[in-house]
């Protein structure tokens, strides 16, 4: 029997240090309660906190594994139960439908069962691992640093919506600090200029108009000047000097207004310019960061939501930065300046003016949080709607095929209803808010009139002062009102930037190495050393060890869910192994720069994705600098050249988002050309031919044979016939390698592979053909538009 059965390899936890006391790594409150449970000299191995009790009510429990015992405490007041380790044969974790269990099994019975929500499932898995290691005699079970000895994520209080995320935008503002400073100086200038005109009303009334009026009265009432002509002459004289002074004030008035306008204009332009750049930076940074995130992040996020975050949320922030922020600074300056001027003119009147200010401030603060939450809900509802679009538009064929248009319309309507609901709530708040502020400003005006009139009657101030005050107050209150209106857009922007930072704060899926190992050319020797990968609590790859020599073709065989795709994802470093390592050419792939490493890997997937662009661009996707000769050569080798020539624009033909104008086989061959062009040392074929009929498969197979030559290849296929060229077949089951060998040997061994092969043969015979059913073979690859 040439086929070898690979034993489940032993764990080697080299990263763990034996002496490290785990207790100190626990967060403060947990550490105390754990320490209270331990006997002297007993050392801690692992801690797990189930969050449900046996009635499935929420309850923080505690499971502690030490070198002697397994301890359990369900809830703060519950009694402690403990089992000596020799009683416990096994720990096992399960989760299903959001509910997880952790069971401790004795040799004859179940000792205990803990319940948990799925958020803690991976922590439960860690507990199981710790136990297994302990049982296997590898004493130290110190969890990895980032593992769940720290409090599970669900525990951390989510930060309340606040303006803190807005302040974080300063990171993006720093790059444009010069322009921002200029903008701010201009704001200051225009604000100062804006304060001049009302100030001029005071001397205008008190020094020009009133004296003139007094003079006229005086002339009329005086007995010294007899004849009317002399009187009129005196008044005229006064009028001329008065006019001259009025002229001076009015010119100054106009000049100040002009200056304020000009400065305001330049300032607006400068700040709009800056904010446009800041929001572009924000978009770029977010998108660039998004590209570094791991595949499972995209697996859990809805496309529409991400699109909404990068497009509409940055737009809101841009609006905030260009309009609101500038206005805010200007308004605050204006208010402070006005208040200063008012106080300098007359403190009592100033106090009367400012009396409504605290009420407005209180109202603003009070309603602010409610508004932000409302806007956050609104944003989420909006994202939900765009997600729906991003879902159903690509899937429109399925929608139509199942005649579900009505239901989709209903779903869309429901999503819109949620938007309405969320917005109604917040609208109710601000519609109350603005008129309330307007009302308060009216009250303020009233108070100023009352106090002002009283003061004029008591000759404490002149009419000129009162007029100047009223001129200022108009400005003051309109600013104040504008300021309160800004609360809305500020809170919107805060909610938006929070959604953006949610992306930005997420660490990249696979970290770049600290000390990268350069690689020029790789030979393609792949070695999996006891590689394991866990997805949540599920062990997808379990201690796989495999050596692939350069140029060898490995066929991965196994039932659906056996972990074949995950294994190649590990080789491509889409995920990092949770245990063990993947080595290429004698180096751990984690020490290569990611992009440089992937440049040596060619991938052909089951559903080839073509980007919006020409065919030439799509073929050259992995190497944009490729010459036309290279592109044509790759297309020829991939058997794509001739059908491309038949397209009306040849290599310059546009293919849509999902390449809808090409058939499945054609798209697949383009993707093979794409992989060929980068001349990879390692080639991954993930079900490359399973989505096409057998006739097309033959054509693709020829293309693939060209591709495979001289490269280390890992191919996954359900149809075992497609793997006939493989040097070795590796049979996976439940994440483990169970058989390795050549087709004939494996068949002779009569193991799992033989079973799979027999089953396929049988199926083929039942359908009257040695191979799986064949669609009507078209004479040429069909080009029927969209039949993909």
């Amino acid at each position, binding site marked *: 029997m040439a086929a070898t059965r690979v034993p489940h390899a032993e764990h080697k936890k080299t990263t763990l240090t034996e002496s490290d006391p785990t207790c100190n790594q626990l967060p403060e409150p947990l550490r105390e309660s754990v320490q209270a449970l331990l006997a002297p000299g007993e050392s801690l191995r692992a801690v797990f906190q189930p969050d449900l009790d046996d009635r499935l009510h929420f309850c923080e429990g505690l499971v502690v594994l030490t070198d002697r015992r397994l301890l359990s405490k369900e809830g703060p007041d519950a009694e402690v139960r403990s089992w000596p380790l020799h009683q416990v044969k096994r720990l096992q974790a399960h989760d299903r439908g959001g509910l997880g269990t952790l069971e401790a099994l004795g040799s004859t019975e179940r000792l205990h069962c803990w319940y948990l929500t799925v958020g803690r499932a991976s922590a439960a898995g860690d507990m199981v691992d710790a136990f297994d290691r302990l049982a296997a005699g590898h004493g130290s079970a110190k969890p990895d640093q980032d593992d769940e000895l720290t409090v599970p994520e669900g525990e951390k209080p989510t930060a309340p919506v606040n303006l803190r995320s807005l302040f974080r935008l300063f990171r993006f503002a720093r790059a444009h600090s010069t322009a921002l400073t200029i903008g701010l100086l201009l704001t200051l200038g225009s604000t100062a200029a804006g304060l001049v005109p009302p100030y001029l009303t005071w001397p205008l009334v008190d020094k020009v108009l009133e004296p003139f009026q007094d003079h006229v009265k005086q002339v009329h009432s005086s007995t010294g000047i007899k004849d009317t002509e002399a009187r009129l002459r005196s008044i005229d004289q006064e009028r001329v000097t008065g006019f001259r002074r009025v002229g001076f004030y009015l010119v100054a008035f106009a000049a100040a207004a002009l200056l304020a306008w000009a400065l305001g204009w330049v300032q607006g332009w400068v700040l709009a310019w800056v904010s446009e750049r800041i929001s572009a930076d924000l978009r770029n940074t977010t998108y660039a960061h998004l590209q570094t995130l791991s595949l499972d992040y995209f697996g859990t996020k809805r496309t529409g939501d991400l699109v909404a975050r990068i497009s509409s949320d940055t737009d809101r922030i841009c609006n905030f930065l260009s309009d609101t922020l500038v206005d805010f600074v200007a308004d605050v300056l204006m208010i402070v300046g006005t208040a200063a001027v008012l106080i300098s003119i007359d403190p009592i009147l100033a106090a009367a003016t400012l009396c409504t200010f605290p009420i407005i401030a209180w109202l603003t603060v009070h309603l602010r949080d409610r508004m932000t939450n409302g806007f956050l809900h609104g944003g989420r509802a909006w994202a939900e709607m765009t997600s729906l679009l991003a879902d159903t538009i690509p899937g429109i064929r399925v929608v139509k095929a199942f005649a579900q248009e009505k239901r989709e319309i209903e779903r869309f309507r429901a999503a819109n209803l949620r938007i309405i609901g969320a917005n109604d709530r917040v609208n109710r708040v601000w519609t109350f808010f603005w008129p309330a502020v307007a009302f308060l400003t009216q009250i303020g005006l009233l108070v100023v009139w009352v106090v002002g009139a009283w003061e004029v009657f008591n000759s404490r101030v002149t009419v000129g002062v009162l007029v100047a005050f009223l001129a200022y107050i108009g400005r003051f209150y309109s600013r104040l009102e504008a300021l309160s209106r800004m609360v809305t857009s500020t809170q919107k922007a805060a909610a938006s930037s929070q959604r953006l930072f949610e992306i930005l704060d997420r660490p990249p899926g696979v970290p770049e190495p600290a000390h990268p190992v350069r690689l020029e050319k790789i030979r393609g020797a792949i070695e999996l050393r006891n590689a394991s990968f866990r997805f949540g609590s599920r062990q997808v790859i379990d201690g796989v060890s495999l050596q692939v020599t350069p140029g060898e073709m490995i066929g991965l065989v196994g039932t659906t869910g056996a972990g074949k795709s995950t294994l190649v994802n590990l080789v491509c470093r889409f995920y990092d192994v949770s245990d063990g390592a993947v080595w290429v050419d004698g180096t751990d792939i984690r020490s290569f720069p990611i992009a440089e490493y992937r440049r040596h890997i060619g991938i052909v997937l089951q559903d080839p994705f073509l980007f919006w662009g*020409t065919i*030439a661009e799509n073929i050259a996707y992995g190497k944009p600098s490729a010459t*036309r000769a290279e592109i044509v050569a790759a297309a020829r080798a991939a058997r794509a050249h*001739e059908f491309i*020539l*038949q397209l*009306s*624009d*040849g*290599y310059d033909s546009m293919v849509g988002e999902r390449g809808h104008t090409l058939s499945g086989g054609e798209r697949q061959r383009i993707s093979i050309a794409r992989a060929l062009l980068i001349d990879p040392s390692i080639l991954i074929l993930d079900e490359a031919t399973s989505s096409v009929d057998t006739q097309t498969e033959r054509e693709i197979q020829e293309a693939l044979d060209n591709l495979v030559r001289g490269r280390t290849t890992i191919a996954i296929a359900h149809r075992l016939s497609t793997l006939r060229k493989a040097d070795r077949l590796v049979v996976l089951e439940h994440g483990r390698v169970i058989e390795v060998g050549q087709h004939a040997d494996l068949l002779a061994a009569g193991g799992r592979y033989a079973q799979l092969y027999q089953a396929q043969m049988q199926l083929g015979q039942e359908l009257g053909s040695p191979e799986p059913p064949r669609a009507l073979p078209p004479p040429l690859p069909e080009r029927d538009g969209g039949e993909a």
Partner: protein
Amino acid sequence: MSDNAASLPIRLHHDVFGRLVVTLANGESHVGVAPVRAFPFSAADQWISLCDESGHEVLCLTDVAELDTRTRDQLAAELARREFVPIIQHIQRVVEGGVASQWFVTTDRGDTNFSLPSEDNIRRMGSDGALLIDSHGIRFRIISVPQLDAHSRRILRQYL
């Protein structure tokens, strides 16, 4: 099918049925071939493939400059007879009608009008060219948008 065949003398002629016949350097001849540009927009005069009636490539000319003048002229004439890509020189007006729009244009082949199904059917080509694909799949080219007259540019700006 080898690439260096292009530098070798090939001959083209039409047979009595009007079919194009290519005679390769080794004396082999193929009847009924059709010249096809592999990169009609990005490299029109390179990578011209001669395909037989069933679509198989007989010969690929990487650069027509390598041909002798007579053959090159023959090839150009043959391509001109097969290709119909009017070049838009002036846009008279565009009538919006619901989804599609009707374009009235002056091309190098005379005045015409065509219907453009959607905005996606206009795309930029190169730095300042544009390509319009009408509802029948006919391609209209604009070599350089900035070199069009002001009126045409104003219309185009709404679409590009």
